[in-house]
């Protein structure tokens, strides 16, 4: 075979070659890239230069996750507040001599599966002989008081109590028709006991309550009604639900060393495909609507990616898909180099998967899979970090009042 024949034969062979990928593969790739492009477009980059042209300020302004959720109509919120409007009376029976028991001792709410943090006030009036002897509208739920009223006096209470039912069963509370044994003991020391059953009306999805009044052994009685307003007005006012970790965690600001110094050094560094990524911390935002926000603070080759590839493991229990991830300038150093991304995992899924540690006790460890991008936005792989350096943000004023476990302070 001479050279020309070799060339012709080679080209003839090459003309028959076909790609391994098919049209479907191309279309799929196209869609993936278009999703990524849309995600990038959601980040508007604002560059403002000073008059001197020396200092440039770069601000990444991600579209608010909250606004997006509201627009999409998926803002269900965890709705932890239940407003209990209480009107009632409680008549202490004889003997009515001091020492007087605490009245009304609503601090003894007992919820097998819930813990309660109360807000609000009850107007308490001490009546005797048809007259108001004392009035105190500053009594919060949970107060303890004693009084020295004479016999035939009774407390009348009227007010709205906001109960924060922070529980891993919430929000399924609104999906269950099962009564929740939401009982409180009127521990006036005389055996009066009121048990309230709060349940979800299957028809209206509203929480209703029913009471079971018990008569004290000595014949005295307590009575009254309670109704529950749900969804609550207060919740609407607050806008976002709250989950309060009942923890031994302490406020960041109470620690020696401020937030800046805490974040001064990366906790871990990994290299993927030759690209180095540093992880500084994970900030948990339990108050993000429709989920739980995790700010993964990284520097290096980490970038945003929308899709199901992200995942978060909480306490090594469950791989939780990330619904939404976006660049988020959680921390920026002087050179604006420290960015991370916010991943919102489905709060309800977290709950149903019994990752209640995230909701109630806060996680002790979180594993995040950070996408790593090389030159020309080429995806090179995931850097997996397991970290216990977690900040639990329950503050509404930045992170300064956020919680962190003392053990985790570096």
């Amino acid at each position, binding site marked *: 075979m001479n*050279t020309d024949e*070799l060339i012709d034969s080679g080209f003839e062979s*090459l*003309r028959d*070659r076909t*790609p*391994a*990928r098919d*049209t479907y593969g191309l279309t799929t790739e196209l869609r993936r890239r278009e999703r990524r492009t849309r995600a990038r477009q959601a980040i508007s980059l604002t560059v403002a230069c000073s008059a001197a042209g020396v200092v440039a300020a770069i601000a990444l302004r991600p579209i608010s996750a909250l606004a997006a959720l509201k627009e999409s109509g998926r803002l269900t919120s965890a709705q932890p507040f239940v407003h209990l409007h209480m009107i009632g009376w409680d008549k202490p029976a004889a003997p009515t001599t001091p020492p007087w028991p605490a009245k009304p001792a609503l601090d003894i709410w007992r919820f097998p599966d819930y813990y309660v943090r109360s807000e609000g006030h009850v107007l308490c009036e001490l009546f005797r002989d048809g007259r108001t002897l004392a009035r105190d509208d500053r009594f919060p739920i949970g107060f303890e008081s004693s009084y020295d009223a004479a016999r035939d006096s009774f407390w009348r209470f009227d007010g709205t109590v906001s109960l924060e039912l922070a529980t891993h069963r919430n929000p399924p509370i609104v999906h269950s028709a099962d009564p929740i044994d939401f009982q409180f003991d009127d521990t006036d020391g005389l055996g009066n006991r009121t048990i309230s059953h709060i349940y979800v009306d299957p028809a209206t999805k509203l929480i209703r309550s029913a009471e079971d009044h018990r008569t004290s052994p000595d014949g005295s009685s307590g009575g009254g009604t309670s109704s529950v307003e749900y969804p609550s007005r207060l919740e609407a006012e607050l806008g976002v639900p709250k989950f309060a970790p009942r923890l031994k965690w302490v406020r960041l600001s109470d620690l020696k060393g401020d937030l800046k110094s805490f974040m001064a050094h990366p906790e871990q560094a990994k290299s993927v495909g030759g690209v180095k990524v540093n992880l500084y911390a994970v900030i948990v935002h339990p108050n993000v609507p429709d989920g739980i926000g995790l700010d993964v603070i990284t520097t290096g080759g980490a970038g945003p990616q929308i899709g199901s590839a992200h995942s978060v493991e909480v306490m090594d229990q469950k791989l939780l898909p990330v619904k939404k991830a976006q660049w988020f300038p959680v921390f920026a150093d002087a050179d604006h180099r420290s960015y991370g991304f916010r991943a919102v995992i489905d709060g309800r899924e977290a709950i149903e998967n019994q990752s209640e540690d995230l909701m109630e006790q806060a996680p002790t460890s979180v594993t995040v899979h950070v996408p790593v991008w090389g030159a020309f936005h080429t995806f090179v792989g995931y850097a997996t970090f397991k970290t216990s350096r977690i900040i639990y943000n329950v503050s509404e004023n930045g992170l300064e009042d956020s919680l962190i476990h003392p053990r985790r302070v570096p």
Partner: protein
Amino acid sequence: MRQDCREPDRELARGVAKGDEVCVAAFFSAYHAGVYRYMLCLTGHPEDAEDLAQDSLIRAKQNIRTYRGDAALKTWVHRVAFHTFTHWNRGRRPTRSIPDEELCPSRSLEQVDTTQALLEALTRLGSALAHPLVLQEIGDMSVDEIARVLDIPTGTVKSRLHAARARLRQLLGDIQE
């Protein structure tokens, strides 16, 4: 007359621009294999060729609105592919040569050797000479179309084709010896 010939191209481009899935699939189907072969000859590496062909077609789809119908859609797509390859080629690292079994496992040893020898020679030819030759041989393009793709005069295309063949003969002659 020529304008009328390109009406189907323009119609397809309009459909792709609108995001019509049928048109997008037809667009990919029409040009994927050709662009892949073009890239295979330039890179000498099937995987790189797959990636570049994919990038080229996706880029073409995303920029289809810039297609005005002045040239055939095939020419325009190959121009996008040419730019994609040029961009890629600037920053690429040296890659390994193609193993025989990856090239064409079902073919005879002689054919394997021929194809591999040609691909190796093409990658050593240099971009300036390889592009016109590959577009002519693999893309089945005329000199005018090649000139449009590479944005060079037709005279330059002709001289490069001549030089490319001469250089290819020389390279393959060396290999054969």
